[in-house]
């Protein structure tokens, strides 16, 4: 089993290397000159050519593609992510400020969504074709079809402006650096983020549960006289979890990528908004590092899926061992 995990883990290295080349080359092909995003057009129109040339040299835009890739990947290994082209800030520090914000938001949102998505999906399945099922299904469809920003704006209007129970946005107030002080800022965005995840997960859980509940071994379990709770949870829910687990784990990249809509609506400075600003500003160093980070998490998530699938379903690892032999 460890050999299986080891091979899967080692396979990540060449994948990451290839991805890094694709990211680097792909973003070099993006139309637009970073200089024109570094300096506002009106100012650029007034700048003399010598200053533009100096700036170009300083930003390393005159180096060859190979030199730039080598320097970029080398610096990453040294822990130096470089500087933002548009803000001139250190990317290490920018990410250090924003990544924890996104992790908090996405983790709470995912946790909230996972708990309630699984619960509602489970209830909806075992109460199939009852008013509870219809209500949850309707809520699920609303959750999926209504855009996040709409829920967000409503929440700000109601809880932030009218009732004044919660902040309308931001990540922290002055002097509120401690996590418990910041929880008030996380409530609305993580709840709204969770709503869509809940709806999706609930739909999947319901479908998976119904699929499993129709299997022969459930009928066998029932015919053996097992209690309904035992059948539903031990035999039904556990087996239904395997495909759902993949969906949950494949949401992990949001922990790094952030969610631009929620972040923008709630003025929450996370990775998602940073990435969008960087893309619109052709701030290639930030786009490249963030994309690479997201790729790393996606690869790790897929590795985690492999591990969990193998642990939950021995046929997978046994099959792999046989292939290896």
């Amino acid at each position, binding site marked *: 089993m460890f050999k299986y995990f080891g091979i899967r883990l080692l396979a990540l290295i060449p994948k990451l290397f290839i991805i890094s080349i694709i990211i680097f080359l792909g973003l070099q092909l993006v139309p637009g000159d970073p200089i*024109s995003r570094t300096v506002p057009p009106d100012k*650029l129109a007034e700048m003399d050519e010598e200053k533009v040339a*100096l700036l170009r040299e300083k930003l390393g835009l005159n180096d060859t593609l190979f030199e730039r890739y080598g320097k970029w990947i080398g610096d990453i290994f040294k822990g130096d992510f470089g500087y933002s082209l548009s803000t001139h800030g*250190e990317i290490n*520090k920018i990410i250090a400020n924003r990544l924890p914000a996104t992790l908090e938001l996405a983790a709470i949102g995912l946790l909230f969504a996972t708990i309630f998505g699984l619960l509602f999906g489970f209830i909806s399945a075992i109460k199939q074709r009852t008013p509870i099922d219809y209500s949850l299904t309707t809520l699920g469809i609303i959750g999926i079809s209504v855009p996040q920003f709409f829920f967000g704006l409503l929440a700000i209007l109601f809880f932030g402006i*009218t009732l004044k129970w919660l902040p*309308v*946005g931001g990540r922290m107030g002055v002097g509120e650096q401690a996590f418990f002080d910041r929880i008030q800022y996380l409530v609305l965005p993580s709840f709204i983020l969770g709503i869509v995840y809940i709806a999706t997960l609930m739909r999947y859980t319901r479908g998976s549960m119904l699929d499993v509940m129709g299997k022969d071994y459930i009928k066998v379990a029932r015919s053996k006289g097992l209690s309904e709770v035992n059948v539903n949870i031990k035999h039904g829910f556990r087996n239904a979890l395997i495909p759902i687990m993949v969906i949950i784990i494949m949401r992990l990249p949001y922990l790094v990528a952030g969610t631009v809509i929620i972040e923008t609506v709630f003025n929450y400075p996370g990775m998602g908004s*940073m990435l969008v600003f960087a893309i619109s500003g052709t701030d290639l160093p930030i786009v490249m590092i963030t994309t690479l980070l997201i790729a790393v998490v996606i690869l790790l998530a897929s590795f985690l899926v492999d591990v969990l699938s193998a642990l939950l379903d021995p046929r997978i690892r046994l099959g792999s061992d046989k292939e290896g032999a």
Partner: protein
Amino acid sequence: MKRIVVLLLALAMVIAMFAACTPAEVAEVVEDVVEDVADDAVSSDDETVGTEEEVEKEEANVGEGEKVYVNDTAVLNLDWWAGIGTDSKFEQPWRDLQSLYPHMLWGTLFKMDPYDVTNVNSAIMDLAESMTISDDGLLYTFVIRDDVKWTDGTPFTGADVEFSLTVNLKLVHSMYAANMGSITGASAVIAGDADAVSGIAVDGNTLTVALDTPFPDITTKIFATMQILPKHLLGDVDPLEFEDYLDYWTKPIGTGPWMIDEVSFPNYFTMVQNPDWYGEPVNIQNVYFTSHVTGGVEATLADLIAGNIDYAYGNGVNDIVQAENVVANNPEIQIFTRPSSYQRMFVFNGKGANDGQLNEFMGNKLVRQAIALLTDKAAAAAMYGNTATPLKTAVLPTSSWYNTDIPEWERDVEAAKALLDEAGYDYSKAIRMVYYYNEQTTKDIMDIFVQNFAEVGITVAPFLATGDLGAILYDVRNWDIMYCGYSTANPVYIYDMYQTVKGYDKYMGDSEFRDEDFQPLFDTFIAEGDPIARKAIGDELQVWAIENAYSVPIYGLSRLTLVNTQKLEFDLQWFTTDENEGASWQWSTWNLIDYQ
């Protein structure tokens, strides 16, 4: 019944869809119909937030009770806006910075009196104790205050001023360097031939700045506006690394009435009073700046409505319709619309593409005059609601510099056609119009221009310049007309761009199309110290500009400020003029108030 409700709702949706794609006046009528339909479908007993009754009720409550000053207990909450974001450092103040904190953190040699903003004789001294201007206008002598300290305890000296003036000439991003060319020795520093500016000297507490040619506007363009930074912390930094010198820019120090206390990138920073502040005492103790870079204008307005910030301005708020909506529903908030000298215009490529062939038609002033008459400036300005003003000259009609003898702008297609015919214009030739603002409003405005020119049979082919803008606009020059933006503080100064040493030279160059009368006229304007004589030359320049149409001003954009006047009180004179360059912010008049 259920079917009727569903049908009514469906009808309302269809009407709403049409309303979204319909001009505003029609949309208002459609909105009324939608409201009627919705009223029929839904019970009117439902209470909704922001009904007229509630607003009226709220209006009645505003300002009730006795006004008390709460400067010691309350906090002034402001928006932290910065073009470079708020992720890892503060923006250097010599960029085009619109945030308030530079004015609170750093000082200048003096400030202009907001009640007499163009008169240097009534200037309010700041870091300088006095200023003397020689009779020929070529030597400025400042006595520097000897009681000023940086907030790290280091004494402030004339060397800081000398450093700040000099380093500006070496930076990539500086909005001041362009107006320092008249200082003796400045051009040598810009060219990299000298390290120090020979015309700037410090002797004890006395600083002198010598000019090669008279330039009265150096007072407002440099001395009253350029923040002085500390030489002892930044003097050894490579100018190309200046903005990246994080030892300073993560928590900059200054000499102003407040100093930075706590910083949390990218969330907020706080300011407290500077105990060594040398000027008129300020009342407000604490100032908090909250970043809205991530959420943008909506987040700024939400915080304003929720009472979390007291003042929103600059790039954070630029939509008049949105701002008016905020004010309508929140009577404690007031809106101030202030015309600015930022404007959009056409400039013409007389040089032609880089094939050596002159662009005959764009070089012909009759064609340019025709384009000025042909362009529907009012329609383009209307795309920005009430915040844009169509322009006849580059000087705003509200400005005291405006030549009132010039008649109001009117579109005249017939006259334009006649001018084009007189110029022998080749109507089969499409005009290549370049623009570089990649947003929908600009694209809509391009559609307006296409329609305008089509009325006389000219095809316009607009295209968005992307990539190396410098190369496209100046070197390749594969365009006839450029739709661009320009901003100056002294309104007449916009003609500065026509000087042979400035940007316009890149398009018109030393081609046969340039008018020889301009440069002597502009030089006289720059050198003239007498305000009345200067105004007369400014008037003449505006007439010259219309006649020659080197550029065609289209519209000027206003700046908006929203203030919670139930929490914040200050002398509002600052808002009454668009010529407020270098005007004092009068921090001592700012008070936090409450009604109890």
